[in-house]
């Protein structure tokens, strides 16, 4: 299966065409957001239509690109050394994702530990408090902002706790599937990977339900810094769960097609690593956003 020579692909049209798709998505996205949130911006082709066209273009190109890669893998062009490049690349990509979440977690701790005490008059914030918002009181979750917007915090022990359990169980099912893959137990692999995908979908459904509840009880994106942090942290996490679920679903199809063997399963393991990363982020979220 594996060859000794490092595989350097022939020239490929996908990087350039993917860049065109990305550019359309970006330009369309910026205009789409402007046209749907600003009163003086009329909808035009450069907004919503361009955004979805660009997104579809990008996804099609990426699918074609990955199809090439899969063909090369199945065709036996990949050496163990190339497998190493893919694995290391995936790990560094996950590290970059960790740092993306770190920016939002950092913003949360800075808000909780410094901004809110200062706004309530601690330290050098005495005059700000006295002159601008004398009635403001420090608290977390911040249910009343300096300008008086009120909101309700999301408790930890309802849906979020159930979701925590779901993700923890999904990690276990995925690990069982991983062992089954390495031991060549196809039936167990398919069963437990399918279970993991289903758990991912259930998690996303419950998360959507939780957002509906949140909006019903006045916890909204524009309800001050607590709502901002709550929705961006859980929202980006949810987006990552979505990607992870799609990733696992695709590798499940590839399992059914018989693409993987115990020594040629990079894509499968990349999906699994991604899933565990998403899990760990959730645990931090559950503890710091919902619970404490």
């Amino acid at each position, binding site marked *: 299966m594996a060859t000794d*020579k*490092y595989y*350097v*692909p*022939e*020239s*490929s049209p*996908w*990087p*350039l065409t*993917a*860049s*065109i798709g*990305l*550019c359309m998505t*970006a*330009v369309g996205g*910026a*205009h789409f*957001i*402007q046209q749907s*949130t*600003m009163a003086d*911006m009329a909808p035009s082709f450069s907004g919503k239509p361009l955004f979805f066209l660009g997104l579809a273009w990008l996804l099609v190109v990426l699918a074609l*690109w990955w199809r090439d890669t899969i063909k090369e893998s199945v065709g036996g062009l990949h050496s163990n*050394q190339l497998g190493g*490049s893919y694995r*290391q*690349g995936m790990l*560094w*990509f996950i*590290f*970059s994702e960790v*740092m*993306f979440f*770190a*920016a*939002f977690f*950092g*913003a949360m701790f*800075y*808000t909780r530990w410094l*901004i*809110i005490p200062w*706004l309530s008059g601690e*330290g*050098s914030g005495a005059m700000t408090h006295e002159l*601008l918002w004398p009635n403001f009181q420090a608290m977390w979750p*911040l249910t009343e*902002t*300096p300008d008086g*917007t009120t909101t309700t915090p999301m408790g930890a022990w309802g849906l979020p706790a159930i979701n925590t359990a779901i993700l923890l169980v999904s990690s276990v099912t995925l690990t069982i599937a991983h062992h089954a893959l390495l031991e060549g137990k196809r039936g167990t692999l398919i069963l437990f990977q399918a279970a993991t995908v289903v758990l991912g979908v259930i998690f996303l459904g419950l998360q959507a339900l939780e957002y509906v509840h949140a909006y019903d009880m006045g916890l909204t*994106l*524009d309800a*001050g*810094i607590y*709502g*901002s942090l709550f*929705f*961006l942290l859980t929202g980006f996490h949810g987006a990552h769960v979505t990607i992870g679920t799609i990733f696992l679903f695709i590798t499940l199809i590839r399992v059914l097609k018989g693409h993987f063997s115990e020594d040629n399963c990079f894509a499968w393991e990349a999906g699994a690593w991604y899933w565990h990363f998403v899990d760990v982020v959730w645990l931090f979220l559950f503890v710091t956003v919902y619970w404490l």
Partner: protein
Amino acid sequence: MSTAAATHDDHHDHHHAPTGLKRWLFSTNHKDIGTLYLWFSFAMFLVGGFMAMVIRAELLEPGMQFVDPEFFNQMTTVHGLVMVFGAVMPATVGLANWMIPLMIGAPDMALPRMNNWSFWILPFAFGILIFAVLMSAFGAGNPSAPNFGWTFYAPLSTKYGPASTDLFILSVHMMGISSIMGAINVVVTVFNMRAPGMTLMKMPLFVWTWLITAFLLIAVIPVLAGAVTMMLTDRHFGTSFFDAAGGGDPVLFQHVFWFFGHPEVYIMILPSFGIVSAIIPAFARKPLFGYASMVYATASIALLSFVVWAHHMFTVGMPLAGTLFFMYMTMLISVPTGVKVFNWVATMWRGSLTFELPMKWAIAFVILFTCGGLSGLMLAITPVDFQYHDTYFVVAHFHYVLVTGAIFSIFAAAYYWLPKWSGVMPSKLLGELHFWNSLISANLLFFPMHFVGLAGMPRRYADYALQFADYNFWISIGGFWFGLSQVIFLIVAIRCAMKKGEPAPAKPWDGAEGLEWEVPSPAPFHTFDTPPVIK
């Protein structure tokens, strides 16, 4: 670092080199992609330079002459963004692409298609940004381009940002995707693609500095993505990250931005350290003094860069303990940096020095970068920074480290490796003209900025008080002179690309060391298909 099987041609080159437009658009070849990066970055250098000329034209005399203050703000903003993200960073990525596989004996970058994607995102990202400037200059209704400075502080960029801010945000996201993929490629190439026997501590220092740079990129570019994402939601979806009325804080933006921004300045300078560490030994004909200490110094600088960010914010106000911590950490960076400068000088000490073009640029780098480093040390002292903050002294400081530092070293690299890239020697006469004109004009341009800064001239203003007029006149003259001097390099580069000049041998510099000199000049399309064995 000699090799047994290094000088091996591409005799079993089963797929022939693609030709025509397809070669460049669809490339998976590290050398072609490196060339694309280098040409792109030079084009951006000229675009950003043109904006600097507009700035200097306006500041030639006190009073308002050519542009209105609003457009002046757009020029300072986009000049900074284009130079940082479009000129310096892609130039060093281009050098990494060309040189790292050659230096470690790899057949290509680890992930060649992703490599091309990293490049091709850039022209689109900068197309968006420059389109905003053109619309502002010539478009109907003259909508403003980004005008809040390259640091895009909230609330200037959130509540008060022009509509083009959203395009700017998305274009920063695109540059970020490009940088992260490029950096992952470098790290994986270095860790996974080294020829047998090329242990980590045998790698050329350029590879080491780029490895550490790539780590910094992967760590902080996502934080920048987080910052612009918070800007976008603050602008359009009612979040309160940078709005105190909702419980956020505009200062939070500065913390997030500079957590990215400080490592970012090392991202721009660490590859330069690697370049100079390759060139000085070659022309001193001595091995680099203190190789291991260079590696550890680079790593220390990178780690320290994560705990100094708030020295950009001393005047914003923070608790005394925080101020002291960031001041001392910043001053600590001068230790590993000093180690580097001493090592370069010690390498030259009692060497058989000759002063070919790359060496001239490298020595200019060592002296002028140290100048910029010393003014950085002054800025690190909190009470002193209270006076210097946001003056031309700061402008002088970061142009010394970025222009006479990073960009001079990139020119050094170009003159050093152009024979390998093109197969011809760059013109000596034009090169000398380029060097001496750049050296003198850059100092005329940037040195007096220290004086006007210390005397209190603020940065980023379209006009200034009368007492600054004389210095500003000469600064502008230096600016135009420096800008014109770069046209000479354009001619040098075009002549090399057209193969005009004396043919270059495989190793044109007799003191040069490294695998890249063991392949012919120009380097064949594929090199090290079978890895060389390093003793």
